[in-house]
């Protein structure tokens, strides 16, 4: 109708939209901030004030407790080890498989692709997989947390699609220079794909860091538990007691719970900002074409 009216409506629209988005963002981030704040509170203050949001006294009680028992540090070490080695295994196997499949002239490429895609549509479920892992004598080893999830079919296909988009000329010229396929992959294709691979290493690393199901399936020995299993024992089961823990720490208080959550989350979240600029692109590179 008239210009003035429309711009007023537009401002209202923009303002409302932004307000809602800021509230949504706050809902996403405030729980983390709250947990970090309480993890630095004092036990006394948490007990005395029922509605505590900003602690007035700063203390390291919670963290002191974490470092006083070997249990948490040990399982953090397990998690770090499994994450680092697991991610390397993931990347290596995924890239090794993706590259030949990206070569359109490779004989037998189609059946292999179909074989991979079928596993995305149909899976045998946890019991038969559990029995295989057991048959292979992987249970109660750290490899049980790494090998059964060595390749994600989905990630592999996206990386394959990414490789396909690289110009063919590069490979041919390398071949003329006497490079074999392994050389081409490691000297040319991988260096060109680093941003995409950085994204997938983050995804794989997060999966390993957060692994819970494979740990409760395959690891019985509590000394080998990764941090997530311990986290559940401490934070979620604390109300029911810690009866199924071999070396039970005293019933944890709220600040210890918070400190344990922070302790087990901060390391993986601190990688995120470094890779963040890559991943939106990395995810989409191949997925658009499916």
């Amino acid at each position, binding site marked *: 109708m008239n210009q003035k009216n*429309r711009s007023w*409506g*537009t401002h209202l*629209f*923009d303002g409302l*939209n932004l307000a*809602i*988005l800021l509230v949504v*963002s706050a*809902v*996403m*981030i405030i729980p983390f901030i709250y*947990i970090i704040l309480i993890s630095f509170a004092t036990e006394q203050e948490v007990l005395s004030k*029922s*509605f505590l949001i900003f602690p007035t006294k700063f203390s390291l009680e919670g963290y002191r407790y974490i470092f006083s028992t070997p249990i948490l540090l040990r399982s953090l070490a397990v998690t770090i080890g499994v994450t680092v080695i697991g991610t390397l295994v993931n990347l290596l*196997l995924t890239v*090794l*498989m993706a590259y*030949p499949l990206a*070569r359109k002239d*490779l*004989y037998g490429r189609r059946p*292999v692709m179909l074989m*991979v895609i079928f*596993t995305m*549509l*149909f*899976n*045998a*479920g*946890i*019991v*038969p*997989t559990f*029995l*295989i892992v057991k048959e*292979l004598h992987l249970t109660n080893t750290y490899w049980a947390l790494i090998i*059964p999830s*060595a*390749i994600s*079919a989905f990630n*592999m296909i996206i990386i394959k699609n990414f490789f396909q988009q690289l110009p063919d000329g590069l490979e041919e010229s390398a071949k003329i220079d006497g490079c074999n*396929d*392994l050389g081409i992959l490691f000297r040319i294709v991988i260096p060109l794909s680093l941003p995409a691979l950085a994204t997938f290493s983050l995804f794989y690393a997060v999966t390993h860091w957060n692994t819970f*199901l494979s740990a409760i*399936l395959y690891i019985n020995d509590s000394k080998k538990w990764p941090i*997530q299993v311990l*986290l559940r024992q401490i*934070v*979620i089961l604390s*109300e029911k007691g810690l009866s199924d823990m071999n070396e039970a720490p005293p019933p944890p208080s709220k600040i210890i719970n918070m400190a344990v*959550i922070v302790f087990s989350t901060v390391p*993986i*979240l601190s990688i995120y900002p470094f890779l*963040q600029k890559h991943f*939106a692109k990395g*995810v*989409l590179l191949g*997925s658009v074409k*499916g």
Partner: protein
Amino acid sequence: MNQSKGNLAIGISAPIRKRTYFWGQIRRNKWLYGMLAPGVLYFLLFKYAPMWGLLLAFKDYQPFLGFFGSNWVGMKHFERLFHDPAFWMLLRNTLVLAGYNILFFFPAPILLSLMINEVRQDKLKRAIQTVIYIPHFVSWVVVVGIAYTFFTIDGGLVNEAIMAMGGEKINFLASAGWFRPMITLEVIWKETGWGTIIFLAALAGVDPQLYEAAKMDGAGRLRQLWNVTLPAIRSTIVILFILRLGSFLDTGFEQIFLMLNPINREVGEVFDTYVYTAGITQGQFSFSTAVGLFKSLVGFVLVISSNWLAKRFGEEGVY
């Protein structure tokens, strides 16, 4: 050398030609096949061997007799399954939770990305995106742990707030009525932000000229949203909807397992958690394999049929 030549050679020599062609390919690309081998081995060992293991559903698995030694029992486990009231409870719980997911969680990322797309200030837009992705990266244990902290009856922030406003404490964590809303809220909190990535990318690909044209025709912001933006992401929505339907029965083991307790088990136990409890912790391998097989088969049928449907409606489909 090449395939067309091989096809031309007719008669007795054809099979021999074919075989030498095969070995020639292998030899020429030995590095490529060498690279492929570990991956293929992985899929055979950890994806296909377990499929063979599904035959356990038709056997009575005895650990000391092993896979091959155990007796065939035909459809016994399936008969037990369909007569077991527990099965119907599992089916109902799984379907209801999956329905909640489609109804409440599926539209959330679409709505959120439409809103983010309307933000004109680039820096602000990026800041919002960075923040809303974060919950995706924490584990379910942490998410459930946070939910416990906020919603517990002894000293949880939400209940304290309800009390301060003169209300009654609500036992969110140990009640049958609150289980499903809690599960759905947690999923929305954790994954909505992450889910926007793909829609935002689709939105970024919209031709700005379309907006210009719409503006010329006198379309306001809402009108542009309806006539330009939404049609632009329609196919993305359809594809993601198919994917969701395909994994309709996957309610997510970890989250539900972590939220289950004796009080909400009646509404909370789903196929995944039941297979774990009955199979792994109680050792009923054959019966729980049958439950798992039922779930996988239904899931498979759902993917195939939803993809077929999408193609019928003129969309590309997933494969």
